[in-house]
């Protein structure tokens, strides 16, 4: 307020019309609003930087004890044992395997759902189906975790009698179902955004509805569909509860989904739930693991960004 009065005082020495004075007040108000908006926007940026800074800081302590070579080439991850090993690869393998299973489920089902909802479903069906689908997003992930552990795993064990109680297959499958609405919803929006004139062009050539959907609408919406996949990958890589509950807590270097193995997130949960002293190597190890998770997600996001740019809509 002080600045405002100062500003006004400064200007009142000049002969100004009341209208101009009002303009000055208004400009000042605009400035304040702009500042508030900018601070709101910066808060998210600042939080991100703070997270990265803490991850880096704590990991730095970790890497003083553990060499990068051991971290990336070691095949055992046992930071809490007497005989400690610090190879991150088993956790990365667990994360990639569960994510791969999840995407193998979610990408086809999600894409087909999006094509159906956007191109085939009547207005009525879409109005009902889409909210229901999006309701799946609201189910707490812990519920999906126990669904995998207590329902899907026993079901799978009937097919594969040798399947262990904790396994990445069941966790991945359920996680895939969980991700379907993300893909379906984002991809459907992208397809609906394809201008009607493009569809009309296809129909006018004598194309059927299916040919139009597959040959014209889907390629036109590629950028949005890729964005949906990227969102799904980030979701799968970062998912915690389902894998912590259903895939097991044992770090194991394997890409076989029928085995149980811990993921990066599952390890972080496991350690964070115990009470480790600050600055201990075990405590620091979760930051190192978190940093790897962050780097992994970042990589996928950058890849996705490149892919989106390549397939940018140009209509």
């Amino acid at each position: 307020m002080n600045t405002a009065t100062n500003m006004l005082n400064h200007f009142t020495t000049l002969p100004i019309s009341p209208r101009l004075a009002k303009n000055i007040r208004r400009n000042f108000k605009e400035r304040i609003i702009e500042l508030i908006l900018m601070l709101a926007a910066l808060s998210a940026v600042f939080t991100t930087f703070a997270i990265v800074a803490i991850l880096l800081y704590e990991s730095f302590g970790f890497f003083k004890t553990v060499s990068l070579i051991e971290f990336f080439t070691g095949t055992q991850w046992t930071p809490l044992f007497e005989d400690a090993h610090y190879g991150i690869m088993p956790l990365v393998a667990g994360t990639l395997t569960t994510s791969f299973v999840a995407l193998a489920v979610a990408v086809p089902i999600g894409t087909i759902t999006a094509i159906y909802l956007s191109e085939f479903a009547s207005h009525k069906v879409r109005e009902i189906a889409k909210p229901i689908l999006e309701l799946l997003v609201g189910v707490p992930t812990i519920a999906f975790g126990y669904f995998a552990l207590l329902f899907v795993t026993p079901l799978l064990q009937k097919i594969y009698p040798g399947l262990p109680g904790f396994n990445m297959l069941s966790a991945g499958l359920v996680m895939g179902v969980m991700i379907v609405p993300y893909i379906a919803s984002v991809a459907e929006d992208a397809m609906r955004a394809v201008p009607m004139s493009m569809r009309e062009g296809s129909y006018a050539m004598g194309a059927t509805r299916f040919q139009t959907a597959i040959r014209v609408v889907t390629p036109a919406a590629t950028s949005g569909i890729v964005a949906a996949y990227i969102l799904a990958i980030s979701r799968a890589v970062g998912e915690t509860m389902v894998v912590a509950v259903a895939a097991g807590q044992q770090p194991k270097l394997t890409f076989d989904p029928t085995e149980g193995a811990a993921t990066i997130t599952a390890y972080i949960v496991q350690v964070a739930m115990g009470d480790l002293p600050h600055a201990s190597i075990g405590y620091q190890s979760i930051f190192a693991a978190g940093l790897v998770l962050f780097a992994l997600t970042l990589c996928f996001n950058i890849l996705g960004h490149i892919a989106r740019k390549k397939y940018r809509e140009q209509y």
Partner: protein
Amino acid sequence: MVNTSTPLKAESKDLNFFYANGHQALKSVNMPLYENKITALIGPSGCGKSTFLRCFNRMHDLYPGNKYEGGIVMHPDNTNVLAAGVDPIEVRMRISMVFQKPNPFPKTIFENVAYGLHVRDEKNKRVIADKVEEALKGAALWDEVKDRLNDLAFNLSGGQQQRLCIARALATDPEIMLFDEPTSALDPIATANIEELMSELKNKLTILVVTHNMQQAARVSDYTAYMYLGELMEYGDTDTIFTRPTRRETEDYITGKFG
């Protein structure tokens, strides 16, 4: 008034059209379409000329609730394209369309032109390549794109894109080609190119064109129909319509007093 020595390609018979909201957009339209001639539809916005054009290839079927009454009969086989038993896809195989705004597909130049052939299940690569070349030549685009057939169609200029859309429609040898204000999004030079092209195309097929541009109608068409409020007010050969219209409304519209 109307030339009878030219064979009829199609005619609309007592055509009524109702949009899903119940609005009657066409009222008992009777109009001939002569073979290898260009017929222009003119009239103020909302008069039903685009609605009428889009009846020919059943575009209204894409939106639920629209209703046709009466018929559009194709000659010489006397097929009523609006009949319930006629598959709109069959109709669109015979009657192709060029839209107001160029609407190429997100594909290469080649694939855009080959689209109609793919849709018709043509598998022979040789046949497709020949047809694409022929269509691009027919649309006066071949010389400009022959070295970059695998470029994305979006990289072409607006006028080139519209000629690509004409090539796309041409590649499947349609009997009738519908043009819905084909030059309204183009600059004067591109417009002149399209008009010249239309005059050449009529040697191969029959053209029905909607236009807001009086000069265009006068320049390119052989016959002109003036529509107003869903009714066909006047139809005749273009010279007569533009020099000695029989109805006062037509004259007012053409001279710019109204519309």
